[in-house]
């Protein structure tokens, strides 16, 4: 008789407890030729819906982002809701949001690669792409926020007659350096593992596409030396990009923490921001994976409930960590005894904008803790889509609480203020969301979104090994 276990009153046999291994991508191999064909079909299939989104999002970028930004440049910053004492509004909130989102690509791809987590294989590229485009969208905000964008070159170190040399002791210059470093390195990190797949696309296309892939594939043949070099470079990147990722959001947090503003001047801001960034980034990966799975042909073969399950567990861990850091930050502010900080915390929890603070707590702690412990929920993609969307609503609310709500309630009560974003600001913010989605949409038809060689490598490395009466999933290190 099979071993039985009683879970929540239901009797399960040992066979029922363990899923069929072929439900996992690594144990359900298909010939490489077929996987290549599936990926190429994803890239070359365009439906009416695709073009509708293409023109809709493209129009959104032109009108909402560039149109509204152009209008703001021509009229001046007074069209925004920024006023004394709140000079950092939704532009900076959204900047922090995008930079946070961009952490997921590196986290999923680099950290999971370093730790050899096998479930990462089919979606590393989707996450890396998110990093690149998230950074591209985020990097626009320092320029937008600048107002007089035509003088952005003041930040660039070059000799000039006016002695305008960047102050390298300023966190804003650190921001410029860190974001530039991260954007360049994450773009290269996206490109390197793409080369063998571009060669695959080169072998299957004609005309302009073939020419483009031929150039981008750098003459890839798949020799031993090429693989060795590629693996070495990916390894260097995977290790080196992790501290860069940590530095980027730490520096973003220092934009706030090095000031004397009550509620910002906190030593825990660095790790608190990083944990928040990874939470929102991993949540965004799940959101995007759901969209890809639902809209791209054959994607359901590559992205399976097991992947949502694994990412759901990660989300739960990071939600715990975020709660821990939030509690630390809150406790010391509250117990520290500084009147301004106490008043600020009271204002956050009971002031007119308290709903934002509660939204943050519900979405970042309440919802993940109540749902993600459940395996069935984690393995239901549409539920994960809703949960992760809500987590990002919560993370946006967190940044809104930290920035304008904190700036509006400082030490001198006669200088308190309320910030309400104006339509022009909301249009620009919406415009960058359109930009991100538009770039992603276009890229989904230009590059293979699934790293086929990595999937096949994983499938070759996974076998079922008979131990006693059972067949146990086993993974071999091909290196």
């Amino acid at each position: 008789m099979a071993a039985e276990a009683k879970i929540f009153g239901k009797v399960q046999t040992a066979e029922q407890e363990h899923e069929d291994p072929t439900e996992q991508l690594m144990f359900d191999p298909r010939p490489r030729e077929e996987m290549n064909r599936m990926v190429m079909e994803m890239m070359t299939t365009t439906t009416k819906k695709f073009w509708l989104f293409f023109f809709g999002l493209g129009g959104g970028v032109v009108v909402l982002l560039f149109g509204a930004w152009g209008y703001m440049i021509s009229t001046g910053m007074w069209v925004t809701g920024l006023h004394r004492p709140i000079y950092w509004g939704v532009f900076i909130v959204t900047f922090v949001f995008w930079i946070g989102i961009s952490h997921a690509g590196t986290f999923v791809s680099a950290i999971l690669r370093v730790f050899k987590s096998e479930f990462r294989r089919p979606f590393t590229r989707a996450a890396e792409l998110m990093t690149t485009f998230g950074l591209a969208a985020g990097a626009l905000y320092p320029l937008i926020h600048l107002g007089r964008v035509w003088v952005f070159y003041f930040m660039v170190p070059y000799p000039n007659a006016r002695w305008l040399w960047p102050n390298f002791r300023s966190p804003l210059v650190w921001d410029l350096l860190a974001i530039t470093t991260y954007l360049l390195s994450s773009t290269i990190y996206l490109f390197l593992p793409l080369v063998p797949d571009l060669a695959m696309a080169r072998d299957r296309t004609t005309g302009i596409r073939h020419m483009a892939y031929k150039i981008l594939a750098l003459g890839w043949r798949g020799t031993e030396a090429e693989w060795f070099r590629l693996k070495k470079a990916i390894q260097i990147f995977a290790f080196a990009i992790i501290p860069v990722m940590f530095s980027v959001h730490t520096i973003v947090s220092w934009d706030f923490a090095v000031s004397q503003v009550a509620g910002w001047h906190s030593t825990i801001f660095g790790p608190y921001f990083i944990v928040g960034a990874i939470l929102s980034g991993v949540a965004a990966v799940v959101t995007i994976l759901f969209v890809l799975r639902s809209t791209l042909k054959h994607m359901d073969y590559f992205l399976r409930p097991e992947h949502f399950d694994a990412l759901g567990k990660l989300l739960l861990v990071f939600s715990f960590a975020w709660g821990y850091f939030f509690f630390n930050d809150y406790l010391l502010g509250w117990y520290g005894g500084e009147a301004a900080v106490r008043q600020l915390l009271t204002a956050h929890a009971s002031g007119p904008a308290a709903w934002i603070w509660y939204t943050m707590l519900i979405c970042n702690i309440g919802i993940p803790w109540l749902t993600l412990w459940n395996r069935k929920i984690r393995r239901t993609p549409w539920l994960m889509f809703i949960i992760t969307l809500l987590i990002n609503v919560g993370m946006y609310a967190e940044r809104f609480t930290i920035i304008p709500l904190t700036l509006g309630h400082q030490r001198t009560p006669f200088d308190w203020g309320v910030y309400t974003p104006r339509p022009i600001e909301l249009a620009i913010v919406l415009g960058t969301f359109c930009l991100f989605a538009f770039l992603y949409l276009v890229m989904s038809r230009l590059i293979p979104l699934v790293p086929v060689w990595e999937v096949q490598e994983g499938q070759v490395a996974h076998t079922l090994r008979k131990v006693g009466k059972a067949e146990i999933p086993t993974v071999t290190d091909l290196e």
Partner: protein
Amino acid sequence: MYSKVVHMALFKEEQIDHAAEAITRLRSLGIPDRDISVISGIPYSERILDRPMSWTRVGLIGLAGAVAGFIIALLFAFGTPFLYPLRVADMPIFFPIPTSIVVVFEITMLGLLISTFIGVFVETISPSYGPKGYHPKVSDGNIAVLFSGPMDLDEKFHSTFAELGATLEHDVEEEKLWL
């Protein structure tokens, strides 16, 4: 001395053991390792195929880039206060530590990562040794063993590879895969 005619033996993706065996047999037929190369759709380590270790200077180039980045960062972080003295709060002008650590770290990492990529790029487009040739089936997961050997061994090659289930192509020409 024989004329360098390149042959290609194509194995299906599940025939990795046969590909490794083919290399052993080629060696026993007198074909040295330098006249054999393997191309595949996924990375197989040298140990799996019993091949000599590959080498790359990518790591060294990356290190050189990191050193260059470090020097540039020092110039920015420590040269700037000398050229453009700017008093911020009560911080010393000519000793910008710890603030400069951030700048030094970022530019060093930028140097490391960019030069690693440049290393990959330069090595990829540089001429390589060993038999050349390509088959699109490689990106479909097939494993190609390329080797140059004397024509008088043709029969032996045929019988060996037929026994191992590979298809053999003779006089494979180098295809121009890049610019």
